[in-house]
């Protein structure tokens, strides 16, 4: 018996001693003091050293786009670090082209602030703000997708964004996470409603953020979002429009369609919307309604896994097959694609084969 007690005490003692040692090392050794960040040669910021640049900047109210939340997988957080960044890390090299390496472009989530740095941040990033929003309404769009309506409480002016852009949503610490987590979601509403944000959230099995939004989030709760971000947005031209979306990739497309509707834009528009089965389709009635209200809009839903013998009378198969079969070779068309990375890649290839210039194809890969 005494053996057992001694054992427990000694093991706990060794563990505690080592933990204490690490804690002390954390405060004394990993203490980098205050570091000065020079931004665009214009202003200086003082930040606590030792943290990744992305988070240090966010603390100062400068929000660099990031979809993965600092995990080093999305490569959206690239900025130029002219001084004090240290050598390029093995975790960055896969995402940086030769040109970018020459220009001192770095992933701001991977490099830590250890000393004074000089960095360059594009001016538009300063427009990115943090908003406090209240969850107004949570709707089941399908059994896998929820629609969130958020109302902006502050700042009072609301958010300005281009149709197709996204925000980052902060999920507070809860059972599945050790710290607040960020993920990107595209707005589904048009920018004419600056106090509203509408998002489509798909369920990801074991996903921290989607689990929170699906199972824990309550109506009336206040959360934080940052925005707006993204290069995927509606561009003006006289050409026809082809839109391709799968799953929750419909969100930015919906925003663009609603914008086209409310601005009364007269461009011939076609939407391919792919899901697995009939019960996975959402916004179906609204899209059908837009066919009547818009000048020249065609909505083509397509199901990839609908059983042969069901009552579905529409198209079956994948959106890529639709491109092959229904799009003629032409150059006078703008294409907007949003959905999984694989889908976007294979669509891109087929569209370019059809002779559509690459510069007229806009896409957003959801991960």
């Amino acid at each position, binding site marked *: 018996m005494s053996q057992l007690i001694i*054992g427990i005490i000694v093991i706990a003692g060794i563990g505690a001693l080592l933990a204490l040692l690490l804690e002390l*090392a954390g405060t004394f050794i990993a203490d980098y003091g205050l570091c000065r960040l020079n931004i665009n040669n214009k202003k200086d910021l003082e930040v606590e050293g030792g943290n990744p640049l992305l988070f240090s900047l966010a603390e100062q109210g400068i929000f660099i786009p990031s979809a993965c939340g600092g995990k080093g997988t999305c490569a959206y957080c690239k900025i130029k670090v002219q001084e004090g960044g240290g050598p390029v890390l093995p975790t960055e090299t896969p995402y940086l082209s030769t040109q970018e390496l020459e220009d001192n472009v770095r992933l701001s989530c991977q490099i830590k602030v250890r000393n004074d740095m000089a960095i360059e941040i594009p001016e538009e990033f300063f427009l990115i703000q943090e908003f406090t929003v209240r969850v107004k309404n949570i709707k089941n769009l399908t059994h896998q997708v929820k629609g969130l309506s958020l109302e902006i409480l502050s700042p009072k002016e609301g958010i300005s964004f281009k149709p197709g852009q996204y925000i980052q949503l902060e999920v507070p610490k809860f059972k599945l996470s050790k710290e607040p987590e960020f993920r990107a979601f595209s707005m589904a509403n048009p920018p004419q409603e600056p106090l509203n944000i509408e998002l489509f959230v798909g369920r990801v099995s074991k996903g921290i953020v989607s689990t929170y939004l699906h199972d824990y989030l309550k109506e009336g709760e206040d959360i934080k979002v940052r925005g707006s971000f993204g290069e995927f947005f509606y561009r003006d031209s006289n050409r026809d429009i082809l839109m391709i979306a799968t799953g929750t990739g419909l969100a930015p497309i919906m925003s663009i369609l609603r914008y086209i509707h409310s601005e009364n834009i007269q461009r011939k528009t076609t939407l391919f919307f792919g899901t697995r089965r009939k019960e996975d389709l959402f916004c179906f009635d609204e899209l059908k309604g837009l066919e009547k209200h818009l000048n020249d809009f065609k909505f083509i839903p397509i199901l990839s896994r609908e059983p042969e013998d069901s009552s579905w009378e529409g198209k079956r198969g994948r959106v890529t097959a639709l491109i092959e079969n229904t799009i003629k070779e032409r150059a006078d068309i703008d294409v907007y694609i949003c959905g999984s990375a694989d889908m976007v890649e294979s669509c891109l290839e087929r569209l370019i084969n059809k002779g559509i210039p690459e510069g007229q194809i806009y896409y957003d890969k959801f991960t």
Partner: protein
Amino acid sequence: MEQIHPLTLLFAAIFTNNILLTNFLGLCPFLSMSKGKKSALGMGAAVVFVMASTTALNNLVHYKILIPLGLEHFRYIVFIVVIAAFVQLVEMTVERFFPPLYYSLGVFLPLITVNCAIFGASLFMIIREYNFVQSLAYGAGSGIGWMLAILTISAIREKLQKSSKLPRGLEGPAITLIITGLLALAFLAFSGMIRVQ
């Protein structure tokens, strides 16, 4: 038992009883980091350092703390905790005070905490009843042996990448394992020269 000279042990751990090629320990980082000579060298150097110091450290912990208290059966858990804490401490220190070293070597340190070769060396050291100096020699030797193996493989893999077309099913880890097997056979010729246990 006759005491083996530490230098003999160092030599043995590198060549005749190479921890990777005879015991096949530490395979995961071996497979993933052996794509290029540069990263193999960094990883190898980190392993040499960590293995030598943790084996010696665990020797002290085992004979000065666990044995007097009659707690040898706890050595698994204690060794793992000691290795993890030590590696983290070293990483913090290197990151703070030796940035150039951190960039070339430090990024590999967290990977080593869970390297079974490191833990294996500590356990062999106990089973074979090495004293402190022998442990240090054995740890360093095993580390150097591991580095030798990963450097060899990475050089072969780099050559292979440039010169030959492999069937798809053989690419990557598959061919690496086959080559490692052949290399192990070659190293088998050394075995029996020195008895380490």
